[in-house]
């Protein structure tokens, strides 16, 4: 692996407060040096000219479904991470709802094996309960030792009070966050979109926002009960104003609660379903415009810790079904940066450094991923180089993901990635 010198770029490293012209030297998979332009000698290095481009820590997505083991027809670790690299990500955290469910050190190690062909760094997230059945906890200590960075039953919420309380305490002991897919499924049976006038008109049963906020409030109550354990609760794909308000209140009370939002929840509202477009079907569903606006406000005021895509690939034949029968989820890795810049930076004037923080620094911090989402000396040589002003068109058919289930096909994005570097290797280069 040759050393790489990235010259002439505008480095944004929110963790170090850097937002200006810098050269960056990557040696043996680590950041070796950062300095003002022109000071570093480049003999023996591969020189990358980043003039006019932003150089940022590689993006970190703490919520992706890579579908391996078990559903390689939707995605594999190799194809999912190739898509991630194309989208500027250098770290992804893989959800455990695979087949079998990743509830063991053995499956975790299988996912991390070099044979999987991951293009970038993968951190598995382990199941919080055995088989994600919500009954008995998994072995958090051994999962952590095998490499998991959090526990969750994503896709299935942990509904029982007692088991959730146990999970929070046990995870705290293992120094792992508990990630909750906050959906009170007792309120969402048979539902396929957000509750409200649009659902009524389409004749679809709607999930009330209370199904999300109610469970977030319950979790916060449990967290308060076990406050002494220093448990960390992370809310996945938060999508409602009420849930966001609950998170704000909990933080004011000193509880360790973090949350992520998905790009589709701040870009689209429920109207995007149009005439039953299954590419706009996911869980949590696209919400009312008022909730979408509330999510944007939460991003701007800092209540939202990070952006995570909930990348959820499905085969064409699965999505090409009646709306109520089609599975939930959309792909997201290749459109996250382009949507975030277009909406948060261009439209809502959020500084680019904040966008980078939401997509890299902060998600790494939420899950305690040391040396990720940061460009300080000694950190992983993970970087994304992009032109923040360049508009481009996202074409699903060109996606590196095995699946093309995105509502953003044909959309004009802003912020074109020219290169992604993972641990000192160029893993994506725009032709």
């Amino acid at each position, binding site marked *: 692996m040759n050393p790489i010198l990235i010259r002439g770029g505008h480095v944004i490293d929110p963790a170090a407060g850097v937002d200006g012209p810098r050269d960056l030297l990557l040696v043996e998979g680590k950041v070796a040096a950062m300095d003002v332009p022109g000071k570093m000698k480049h003999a023996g290095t591969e020189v990358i000219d980043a003039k006019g481009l932003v150089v940022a820590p590689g993006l970190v997505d703490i919520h992706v479904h890579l579908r391996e083991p078990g559903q390689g027809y939707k995605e594999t670790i190799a194809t999912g991470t190739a898509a991630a690299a194309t989208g500027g990500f250098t770290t992804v955290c893989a959800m455990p709802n695979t087949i079998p469910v990743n509830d063991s050190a053995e499956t975790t190690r299988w996912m991390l094996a070099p044979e999987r062909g991951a293009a970038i760094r993968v951190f598995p997230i382990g199941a919080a309960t055995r088989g994600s059945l919500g009954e008995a906890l998994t072995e958090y200590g051994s999962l952590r030792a095998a490499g998991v960075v959090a526990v969750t039953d994503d896709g299935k919420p942990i509904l029982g009070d007692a088991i959730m309380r146990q999970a929070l305490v046990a995870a705290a002991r293992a120094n792992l966050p508990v990630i909750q897919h906050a959906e009170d499924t007792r309120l969402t049976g048979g539902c396929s979109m957000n509750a409200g006038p649009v659902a*009524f008109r389409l*004749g679809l049963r709607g999930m009330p926002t209370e199904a999300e906020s109610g469970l977030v409030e319950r979790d916060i109550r449990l967290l308060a009960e076990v406050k002494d354990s220093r448990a960390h609760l992370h809310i996945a794909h938060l999508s409602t104003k009420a849930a966001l308000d609950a998170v704000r209140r909990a933080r004011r009370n000193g509880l360790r609660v973090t949350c992520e939002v998905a790009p589709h929840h701040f870009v689209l509202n429920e109207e*995007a379903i*149009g*005439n039953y477009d299954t590419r706009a079907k996911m869980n949590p569903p696209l919400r009312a415009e008022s909730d979408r606006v509330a999510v944007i406000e939460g991003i701007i005021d800092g209540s939202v810790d990070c952006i995570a895509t909930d990348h959820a690939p499905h085969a064409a034949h699965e999505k*090409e*079904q009646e709306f109520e029968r089609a599975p939930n989820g959309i792909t997201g890795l290749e459109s996250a940066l382009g949507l975030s810049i*277009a909406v948060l930076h261009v439209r809502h004037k959020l500084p680019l450094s904040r966008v980078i923080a939401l997509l890299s620094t902060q998600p790494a911090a939420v899950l305690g991923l040391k040396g990720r989402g940061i460009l300080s000396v000694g950190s992983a040589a993970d970087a994304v180089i992009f032109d923040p002003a360049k508009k481009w068109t996202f074409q699903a058919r060109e996606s590196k993901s095995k699946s093309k289930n995105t509502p953003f096909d044909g959309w004009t994005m802003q912020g074109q990635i020219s290169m992604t570097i993972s641990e000192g290797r160029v893993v994506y280069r725009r032709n």
Partner: protein
Amino acid sequence: MPTKTQHRKSQAPRLEPKTISLSHPDSLHPNSIHPGSLLSAADLSIDKVESILRLADVLEKEDALRRDKRLFKRRVSLLFYESSTRTRTSFELAAKALGADTSLVSAQSSSIEKGESLKDTGITLRALGAECIILRSPYSGAPYLLAETTGLPILNAGDGMHEHPSQALLDLRTILAHLEIGAKITETTLKGVTVTICGDIFHSRVARSNALLLPRLGARVVFCGPTPLLPEIAAQLGPNIVIERDFDRALAQSQIVMMLRIQAERLAGLALDLEEYKARYQANVDRVAAYAPKALVMHPGPMIRGLEITSEVADGRQSAIAEQVRNGVAIRMALIMRALGGDTKVSTKSRSVSPKKGASR
């Protein structure tokens, strides 16, 4: 061959500040839907409604032997994932009256049982020569999927809780005949007319289609029913829709009353007492005589006598229930003609209220 992934949203929205996050109606509306399709009453322009009604008049009056040549040997498939006697027979008779060949694929038939997808069933029917598919599905929106994946004209014969647009058209024809309105359809044709739709609005595709169609011609729609079967958001379905939970008060304002079937198991699930329901929402002689002695009473069927409506009312002089069924065949003939691109030219004379026999002979 059109496929959904290619056509569903090919007019992709551009990420421009003003359009993002809002709906993108032009882009999300699939562009491969055959124009002869009828998927939602919301898609019917006033002109289209007018031409369908006029064509229904002509076809109904036409000599049977002559009519038989209109779609002679054309192929119409009926794809029914739910059992339905009334609607299926009505469409079948309509197609046959035009000379078309019909084939029925129902839930009991083998390929559906084997779990074949709607797309594949549609493609198979097309390969077998179907030129139009009439679909009844328990899934809301299924006709859109079939229209996009086959490219054929699709007639929605009821999809989940969504819509039943041919029912709304036949109901409209029934209402117009009752009110003796024969002039050209406009936005004010039903001005001053109040239509109460009473019962399980939430689950009713008939309610949705009527409430989307009738106000466009100037009618006012009153939804009536208990909250579990009629959520407040129902009033946001479209313009000129209001909710009145007191059935007597709703009746007192109405020229037209549509009763909906009430499924006892749904009441049970909602812990709503059946006797209480009858006491508050049943169309019975006393109530109708007291509050709506001149109103036309309609029911899309199948009705449960003694529950939402009593026999005395269903069979009484105010009832238009049999008339609705008759109108169904005429409307569906027009829809099938339109779907198959048959010669839909009709005389430019105003529609007549009472059909005159042999007018086009």
